[in-house]
């Protein structure tokens, strides 16, 4: 009996804790995402100090510092009190959801968080200068931050995708165009290339190339358990067993390229290491074409952006929007490219000589013609596809149709 009372009391206390969590996340944030920017004059009243908290990753702090200095220099009439916080783009959504009130006024984040942030009313709709923002950035990056015809964030980069790095001394510019060419050249040199199909983000390129995983009304359609999907898996199996394919992702490619590896799929954040290893032989281009179901098909990819958002609970919406606008302007995107190698989403910045001369960004731009936005990928997509990729790597898939049926069922179930 005593035990029973003790347990009941314990359960009650636990419930109290949980109730605490529930109320904190359920209550709608005051103001909401649709608040109007107010009629305050830009920059606020004279003599007023405007507090702005800005979030960015640790390695981006120097860039933010410089941008803030220039912003203050450009607005001499107003006194700003900037505070910098260290929150990576990938963590911004999580940190903001925990307590929007304590969140930054202006923050960088990655695009797969956009829909959640908008639905939770945490983003301030971009109501100032929206037409200019839409026209000065590349269309794909604007599309990602537009939901229901409204602009929700400021495109900052258009560089979160993958493409093909290669060692020019092993693979010629002609060979790199097709997967067969890469396999032949690598086999001839006794080297491996990586194409990480155990990473669901990259595995998608085969299904996307077959026209699968398409988006209909902002919803990813996962019905690739059909003939096209089977052909994609068969092509992956052929690549894995080609003799030149090596398992691995970032670490293996960065470590092996130039010595044991001839090339591999990677992203913009690996450029510094790979170009240092290859020197003059550094090459990067779009993904190759591959023979899928008897036809030569261009491999596709997922594509993502980083954006700057304004917190819907900011006390200084006008100043926050002005700063976000400035932070994603042409000049600042160029600065971001110079200091951190980030690929600009701004059209003029992207067309500048420095960016054009960047081999990796050029490769990414080339690949973006065959890329699909990852903003609306179903949350349940990643794990089952990763498992499928690993089964292909281990040659464990014998009945492809059955395996695909299971993967699709798991994805559908999770959503």
């Amino acid at each position, binding site marked *: 009996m005593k035990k029973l009372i*003790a347990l009941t009391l*314990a359960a009650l206390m636990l419930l109290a804790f949980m109730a*605490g969590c529930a109320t904190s996340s359920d209550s709608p944030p005051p103001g909401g995402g649709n608040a109007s920017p107010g009629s305050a004059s830009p920059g606020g009243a004279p003599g007023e100090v405007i507090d702005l908290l800005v979030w960015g990753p*640790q390695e981006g702090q120097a860039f933010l510092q410089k941008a803030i200095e220039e912003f203050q220099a450009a607005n001499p009439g107003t006194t700003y009190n900037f505070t910098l916080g260290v*929150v990576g783009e990938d963590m911004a959504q999580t940190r903001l959801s925990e307590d929007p009130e*304590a969140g930054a006024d202006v923050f960088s984040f990655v695009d797969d968080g956009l829909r959640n942030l908008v639905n939770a009313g945490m983003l301030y709709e971009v109501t100032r200068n929206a037409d200019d923002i839409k026209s000065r950035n590349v269309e794909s990056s604007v599309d990602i931050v537009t939901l229901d015809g409204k602009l929700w964030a400021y495109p900052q980069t258009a560089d979160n995708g993958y493409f093909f790095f290669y060692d020019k001394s092993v693979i010629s510019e002609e060979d790199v165009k097709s997967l067969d060419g890469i396999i032949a050249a690598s086999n001839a040199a006794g080297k491996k290339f990586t194409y990480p199909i155990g990473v669901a983000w990259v595995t998608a390129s085969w299904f996307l190339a077959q026209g699968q995983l398409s988006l209909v009304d902002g919803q990813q359609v996962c019905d690739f358990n059909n003939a096209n999907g089977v052909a994609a898996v068969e092509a992956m199996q052929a690549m894995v067993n080609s003799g030149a394919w090596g398992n691995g992702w970032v670490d293996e490619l*960065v470590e092996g390229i130039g010595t044991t590896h001839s090339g591999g799929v990677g992203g913009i954040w690996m450029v*510094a*290491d790979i170009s240092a290893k290859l020197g003059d032989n550094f090459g990067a281009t779009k993904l190759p074409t591959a023979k899928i179901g008897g036809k030569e098909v261009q491999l596709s990819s997922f594509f993502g952006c980083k954006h700057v958002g304004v917190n819907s609970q900011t006390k200084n919406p006008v100043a926050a929007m002005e700063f976000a606008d400035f932070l994603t302007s042409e000049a600042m995107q160029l600065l971001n490219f110079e200091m951190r190698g980030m690929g600009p989403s701004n059209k003029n910045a992207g067309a500048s000589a420095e960016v054009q001369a960047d081999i990796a960004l050029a490769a990414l731009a080339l690949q973006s013609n065959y890329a699909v936005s990852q903003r609306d990928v179903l949350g349940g997509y990643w794990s089952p596809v990763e498992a499928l990729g690993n089964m292909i790597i281990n040659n464990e898939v014998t009945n492809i149709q059955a395996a695909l049926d299971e993967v699709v069922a798991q994805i559908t179930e999770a959503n």
Partner: protein
Amino acid sequence: MKKQNIGTPAYHLTFRTRAFNFISHVALTVLSVIWLFPVFWLLLNSFREESGAYTSYFLPKGLTFQNYINLFTNTGLYDFPLWFMNTLIVAIFSCLITTMFVLMTSYVFSRLRFPARRPMMNIMLVLGMFPGFMSMVAVYHVLKLMNLTQTLTGLVIVYSAGAALSYYIAKGFFDTIPRALDEAATIDGASKNTVFWRITLPMSRPIITFTLLSSFIAPWVDFIFVSVLMKGKADKFTVALGLRQMIERETVSAYFTQFCAGAVVVSIPLVILFLMTQKHYVGGITGGATKG
């Protein structure tokens, strides 16, 4: 003749014992290599001269002390010394408070008799079994009401406020101290309070060191609470959260060896404290276990 008869089986036994010893030592060696290998790997990487997060070879091509020097001098991007001091401050205060809480609670449950003592002990035991981060969001909002988020004080409270829930080991230890001592002191005019400070505590050195050590470690290894509490306030980070910043996708390759050096440096205060209290620590665990 007689001697030899006795000698042969004796020799046989020794051989079996030796064989057994040999096999168990081989097994122990293999296990210790498996356990120590990651530590050794971390040490080697912290001295590795060439950068990069991943090498296909085990032994570094060059050894250097520069990673450690950079960790403490090159603080523009990652202010490790500050993070280290933050953690040290939090660890010292939370371990002192925790130890007091635990010892007092244990003493009360061990020596005093009052209504609802057993139910309270049971509730605390059950509550202590739930992982702390289940109540993380609630804790965060309570601290926010008190204006203690993004402060080291808030962090100390997080690590020490629930300490009393883990009273049972210390209580088991106190139960083994003869009550006759208490009674003798009471006859001499000591209050319960005096008995706790003058009689029980001086005899409980093992369990005090055990509690000190285990509570000192918590702030060094916790990541979840500190990241929720501090959000982006980099000058209040602890080492766990700070070091994590080094191995972001963009920086992992340049800073991985420094990250390893940081991980090695973090272990130094723990090792010092452990060596200082080692004798009592071992006594603490066995004392609590066998006598309790």
